[in-house]
């Protein structure tokens, strides 16, 4: 396969200074991710998953190492350039959704486009609506985010991550706050997005969930201890169908 490399990191380190102590959250992490992959980054709590994903999402800067995003070296970028990259190339999904409260789903989803000078108002609304339809919330567009269930809020957050048509979607414990059933619904949504060609990095501490992606990177104490490909990922939709339906 002549796949294009979306993410290329080499010997990434990240230290935190806590008082006199230095916490080594990442101790030299290297991998590359090709276009169209669905990667699970797994590890116990405190293994450095979020730290790694924040750096990949240009939300944080590494202490050392190189990071190429879509062919560009992030280390050489200015703050404003990184902001532009976050806006155009990255869709980031947080465990705690991070939506604007007292704001409709549509306005939340349209928000990234407001910071994109190339999108006018009509396009903005059109694309935000389409993203909400894509995540299955066509009937909730004008609901306030704080009046929605956790699963719905996460769908809004996913729609917001999709709206700028990013080269990669980064999800940090996106199902961490949700019940089993809703988790599989969201996971199924990620699989659909993957099917449609999106590149996805999915962070979780739950080993069970790694069976649904095409590649699993295992992290421990800030280092990669395994990186395996999975040629036959399970279907989240099927698992969902087998779950006992307690909604009745």
């Amino acid at each position: 396969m002549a796949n294009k490399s979306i993410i290329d990191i080499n010997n990434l380190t990240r230290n935190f200074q806590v008082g006199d102590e230095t916490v080594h959250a990442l101790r030299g992490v290297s991998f590359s991710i090709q276009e169209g992959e669905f990667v699970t980054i797994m590890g116990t709590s405190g293994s450095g998953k979020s730290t790694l994903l924040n750096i990949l999402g240009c939300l944080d800067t590494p202490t050392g190492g190189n990071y190429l995003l879509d062919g560009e070296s992030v280390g050489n970028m200015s703050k404003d350039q990184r902001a532009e990259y976050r806006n155009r190339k990255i869709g980031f999904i947080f465990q705690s959704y991070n939506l604007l409260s007292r704001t409709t789903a549509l306005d939340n989803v349209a928000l990234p486009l407001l910071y994109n000078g190339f999108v006018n108002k009509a396009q903005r609304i059109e694309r935000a609506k389409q993203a909400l339809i894509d995540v299955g919330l066509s009937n909730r567009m004008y609901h306030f985010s704080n009046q929605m269930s956790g699963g719905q809020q996460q769908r809004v957050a996913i729609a917001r991550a999709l709206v700028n048509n990013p080269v990669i979607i980064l999800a940090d414990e996106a199902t961490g706050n949700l019940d089993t059933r809703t988790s599989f619904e969201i996971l199924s949504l990620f699989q659909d997005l993957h099917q449609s060609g999106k590149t996805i990095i999915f962070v979780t501490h739950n080993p069970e969930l790694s069976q649904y992606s095409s590649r699993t990177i295992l992290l421990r104490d800030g280092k990669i201890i395994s990186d395996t490909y999975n040629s036959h990922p399970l279907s989240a939709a099927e698992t969902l169908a087998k779950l006992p339906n307690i909604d009745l």
Partner: protein
Amino acid sequence: MNYWNLFYIALRAILSNKMRTFLTMLGMIIGVSSVITMLAIGQGSKRSIREQISEMGSNMVMIHPNRGRMGGVRMSSADMQVLKAKDFEDLQKECPHISAITPQVSSSGQLINGIKNAPTTVYGVNEDYLNIRRYKVDKGSFFSDEHVKTYAKVAVIGTTVVNNLFDEETDPIGKVIRFNKIPVTIVGVLESKGSNSMGQDQDDIVLMPYTTVQKRILAQTHFQSIVASATNEKDTELAVEEISAVLRRNHQITGDKEDDFDIRSQEELVSTLTSTTDMMTVLLACIAGISLLVGGIGIMNIMFVSVTERTKEIGLRMSIGAKEKHIMLQFLIEAIMISISGGLIGVLFGLLASYLVNFLAGWPVYIQGWSVLLSFAVCTTAGIFFGWYPARKAARLDPIEAIRYE
């Protein structure tokens, strides 16, 4: 980035948190309106006192004999034979900054009309007195120069005297009354002036030619005082200097010898009286200043807290692509919109409150443009600065630091 989008974003942020917006505005409203009201009350009372004094003639200059002299024996200034007819005539001729001047002699006694009588003081003056004390003749006329020259037994009286001596139906003009047994013909009645600011009834007054009072009542040739009007309020000091020069020459006072006369201008009285109100204005201004400070600190606090509380929101906005300048502009626009509308509402409330104080409590108020501008400017500046500064701090963080902020 389309900058109109930032206006839209800011407006959305303001409207989607009405409580926060309201509380922020409340600080501005209270700060601005209390300062305006306080200063309006202070200025109002100062002005009303000034007005009352200037009703009496603020450019008035009074010349009395100086009581300090006469070899240690203190005498009533009225008994000192210092001010003579020649002094009056010379002052009238030689002082360009005097527009009106009259000698003044007075005598107390009983006014009698038939069975009615009233104790009073008769003032001997000339025609200029009307001008100097701002009286107007209501009925009849003032006595003439001719009356002065001939020691005519005529009088002009105030409305209180009219009420004391005559029935309501009687026209006092042409009637003859008695003052200390001397028959006096009433030629005019003065327009009522009411009480002055010190509570004196300005209508309890009897005016006669000074010559008449001197010759027929007091049998003296000197004056108790001379009263003059400077050409205008600002010329008062010049007039005082001119008067002093003429009198020193006439009285042969040279070098550093003490004057045998004493000149006082109404201006001095005004300044003593206004110094009390000045003190009150200073006091009120201090309170207003403290309100302004407290208002400013209140604005600072609520802005600081609300922006700090919004650090997470700032982090989120940055995580989806907002640049530092976008965040700063958004918060600046928000702060400007809130501060200016809060300030304007504050001005409105301040004007309303001043009006209510005037209407309900009857206190005089006067709103000065600068007090409105000052309080508006201080509060909006505080609001804008403290809305923008913490946002700038937050916008300089890495997005993840801001998002994690609790």
